[in-house]
């Protein structure tokens, strides 16, 4: 699907980072929406907008599952896959996210009995 804001960086939230991390665990395979939602333990209502934003930014591509619904006994699934540039951008975004979160951990007060790491 062609989006107006193709290639614009998506808004990076913790939910988006969690979805990207889940997808990066197996970056080449395709996942459907409910599967991703179950993996990150978010409602699908929040996952689909994230996927729409990632797709609009070109980080993710989606295609219909190549099955016949009558044979499978269920509707087709929309499968989402990280694009090459999307996977690189996702890794970078996760690294940036970790760097942002890391200082909060490093300033943690040390217990007197705790040996400095």
């Amino acid at each position, binding site marked *: 699907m062609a989006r107006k804001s193709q290639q614009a960086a998506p808004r990076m939230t913790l939910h988006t980072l969690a979805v990207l991390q889940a997808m990066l665990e197996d970056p080449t395979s395709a996942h459907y929406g*409910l599967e991703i939602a179950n993996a990150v333990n978010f409602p699908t209502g929040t996952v689909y907008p994230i996927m729409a934003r990632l797709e*609009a930014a070109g980080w993710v591509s989606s295609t219909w599952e190549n099955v016949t619904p009558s044979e499978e006994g269920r509707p087709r699934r929309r499968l989402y896959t990280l694009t090459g540039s999307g996977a690189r951008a996702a890794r970078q975004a996760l690294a940036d996210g970790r760097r942002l979160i890391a200082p909060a951990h490093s300033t943690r007060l040390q217990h007197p009995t705790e040996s400095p790491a």
Partner: protein
Amino acid sequence: MICLLALAASVHFYALYDAKTVAANRALEASRKANVVLANVKREILASQGYQKSLKARVAADRTIFTDETSGIAGPGFTGVAGFGPVAQEDQMILNRDLRILRTVVGDVQTAQRTVGTTERAIAADDFAARSPQAGLAWSLVALIGSGLLAAATGPLNARRSIVRQGGYLPWASQDWQRLYAAGGWAQVLTVMLVGSAVASLGHPDDRDRYGEEWAGDMANISGKWRRAWWAITLRIFAPHGINSARGELSARKY
């Protein structure tokens, strides 16, 4: 959506009924207490009035004696103070004190009467809830049935519902309702309505086609009627807004 509205109306009316009943009970209790206070005060007034009468009689008698003493007849209260007998002075002081007490008591009575008046007005306002314990439930049912009738009567009023009907996203026909209800009860009806509403809220026709099929697939994958209904609720709340926002058409539509 209509079901949700009806549900919200039911909860609202039930809460209203509950609050009114509680308020009526409190008002009745306050009224009972105020009436007790009023009765006590009335008793005090009567006693005070009786005492006042007896005091006046004593003062009058003392003055008579004092007058007789000044004219040369010795009496029990005479002590030689010019102008007024000592018993009369004492009784007059008691009388004045009692008049002050009486004025305070009259103030209390007025306050109590105001309290009773306020309470009676509160009781009148809550009379409906107090007299009819099932009123809240009845109103909830009326709201539920009324919303359903309204939804059935209005039909395809706007373009969105028309599109949805043409696209077959929402089964508005009565046989479809019956089929859905038979398949999974109210949970199934609610789920299908919410998913249909979510699809209808998408701004772009391509999105409606795509997500309609995608969410139908998800719906088939989720087990448990009420778990599916909960999934549909979260989907309806979050998904259309986010997807339309991603497409940049948020400002073009109202939700």
